[in-house]
């Protein structure tokens, strides 16, 4: 995405940014990218994704780690750069977007896992929010959205590509001389073959479980057919349950299944767009039960309401026992207007991607713990 530096920096520069600025910012983005990859921290990348998509203003304070990281790196090239977000918010957003764009363009195997997590975050952040009206900002975010979708496609396709289990290693004619050497070779070979068999079985299992889930049309969490649940609840339940079954990152087929489970056998009136203000009262605890994250993911959801708006509000409503004034708090924390009409398909996809993103982030947290 560095090749887009000039175009994207135009968002912050009414006239074309000078060559010097473009060179400085490219260097800044390069260093920030290295830092992000080295840290492989789900919180840091989540903050960068939010900064890139939703912006800095009103979301990050001057002393927040994300702003400080951005400003410090910019100042390494250009000492005379304002530290106050009142003066630099848009430019910081563009830099964050360039970093995220670069991360989405990574192809090295070591960075694919991080790239996939960021891709799902970008898709999630743009799922229920309209693009901003600013022509150039919208164009930048749209390009990020396209990159993220492409990255997810690529990884989803790779994760589901079927291959024959190779037993060539077992059939090898090279017979080790002694038992100890033979065990060493055998253990390694058999371990590889079993791992491969396990991966192949997982692909079949995903397909079987998803298709059965769709065939049954039954929510295991709520113990009722999707079609008998209010559409607002069915959207959440199908999104949450199918996200629990899918191999990650999810393929577009699974996303289509989620929408299908929500909209099948519904009348047009049930599928009409509605606002979150209209939707939430219909949840009546059922949808919240699907959305409230498990204990290990609680902190992550609480730290990133913009990324998990549905899970966050479900959690918040449970904490405070519901309040008629939730919309203001929701709007402040998530940048989603409670009065914005959402389709039921959008609602289902939002619930689906929220849980996919949580599962992927949890995998990172587990890796951190292992280290």
């Amino acid at each position, binding site marked *: 995405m560095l090749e887009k530096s000039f175009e994207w920096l135009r968002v912050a520069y*009414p006239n074309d940014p000078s060559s010097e600025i473009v060179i400085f910012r490219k260097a800044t983005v390069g260093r920030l990218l290295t830092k992000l990859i080295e840290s492989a921290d789900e919180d840091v990348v989540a903050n960068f994704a939010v900064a890139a998509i939703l912006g800095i203003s009103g979301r990050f304070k001057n002393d927040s780690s994300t702003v400080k990281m951005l400003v410090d790196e910019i100042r390494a090239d250009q000492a005379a750069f304002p530290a106050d977000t009142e003066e630099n918010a848009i430019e910081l957003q563009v830099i964050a977007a360039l970093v995220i764009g670069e991360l989405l363009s990574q192809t090295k195997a070591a960075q694919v896992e991080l790239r996939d997590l960021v891709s799902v975050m970008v898709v999630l952040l743009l799922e229920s929010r309209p693009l901003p009206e600013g022509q150039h900002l919208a164009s930048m975010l749209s390009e990020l959205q396209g990159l993220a979708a492409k990255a997810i496609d690529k990884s989803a396709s790779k994760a589901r590509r079927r291959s024959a289990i190779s037993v060539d290693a077992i059939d090898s004619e090279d017979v080790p001389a002694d038992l100890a050497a033979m065990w060493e070779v055998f253990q390694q070979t058999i371990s590889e073959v079993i791992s491969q068999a396990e991966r192949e079985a997982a692909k079949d299992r995903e397909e079987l479980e998803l298709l059965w889930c769709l065939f049954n049309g039954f929510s295991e969490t709520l113990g009722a057919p999707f079609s008998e649940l209010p559409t607002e609840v069915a959207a959440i339940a199908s999104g949450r349950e199918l996200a629990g079954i899918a191999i990650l990152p999810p393929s577009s087929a699974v996303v289509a299944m989620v929408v299908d489970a929500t909209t099948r056998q519904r009348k047009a009136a049930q599928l009409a767009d509605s606002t979150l203000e209209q939707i939430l009262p219909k949840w009546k605890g059922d949808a919240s039960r699907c959305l409230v994250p498990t204990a290990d993911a609680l902190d992550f959801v609480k730290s990133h309401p913009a990324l998990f708006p549905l899970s966050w509000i479900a959690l918040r409503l449970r904490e405070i026992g519901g309040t008629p004034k939730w919309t203001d708090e929701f709007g402040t924390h998530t940048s989603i207007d409670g009065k914005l009409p959402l389709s039921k398909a959008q609602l289902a996809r939002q619930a689906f991607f929220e849980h996919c993103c949580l599962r992927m982030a949890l995998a990172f947290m587990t890796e951190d713990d292992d280290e």
Partner: protein
Amino acid sequence: MSGSASCSKADCTIAATGKCLEAHPDPQECPFFATTSAEPEPAVALVTPIEPDQPDEPTPSAGRVFHAGMELGFEDAISLSRAKYVHLVPVLGATDAGKTCVLVSLYLLAVNRMLARFRFAGSQTLLGFEHRARGLRKWPSGELPDQFVDHTILGEDRVPSFVHLAFDDLSRKTHRREFLFTDLPGEWTTDLINRLETAKRFSFLARADAVVVAIDGKRLADPETRQQEVMQAEHLIQRLKQTGMPVHCKAILVISKRDESEISLLPYVESIRNLASELGFALNAIETAAISRDPNRIPNGLGIEELLQTIVAAPESVAQQSRGDKSGRAMSRFTKSGRSK
């Protein structure tokens, strides 16, 4: 002693135009400016010894120049746009096409709370609007500046620059919108039509959110001048394309002075619209009456809010790339459904 003036600031053309890019009324005050004498001074003059205990002469410094509130220069505009998303809207058109009237009308409608969707939320060029509304801010006679200034200061003549308006968009909760409109002499547009080499000064078009082209409705209504007006507008649209205006940028044709014609003039601009379409632009045409001569028939500010709404209208949503599933087998049929609403 005869001497030549030069400036070390990039792009400054003071030597040719006599106009300081930093907008200093007296170029000698500009830190970038230097006068080189034709006859070299004797070397001794440069090394005049200073008495050791003599206090240093106070060095004249640029100091802090307070914003005059008349217009914004390029550097001022950059400061603003680094902090907030700014809708950059160049307003082009020949002299007397009604460019300034459109801006003044927008300002007056805003401050008098006559816009339905937008609430006035401030302006960094308030004084500039006030002066324009009173007809006090006119282009200087003689040769006009051929470039934007970086900063504007109090006392400066009207110069090619930006004017700023901020609105709260009432259609969306707590949504502030910032606008920078260009304030350019009509000669710039005429020059662009006649000479492509002047296109360099329009490089900012690449960043524009929308470009407003104003044409004189009175001349369009007159059969004798109509064709000339249409041709000028067509040439301008072609020039904009050559200048680098991106095709996704909204092009808005403002037909001014609607109050001076009896009938709608929209049918007369059909050929302009067709040409724009051929060039890849989606052209919106709006009839305006900035300050109506007959408010009972044509209201004051006709079309001005529509113009603002067109500028901020959401860009055509770039369709999310279809997530083509290549996992094969039975699942592939679901990819056909794509992203349903």
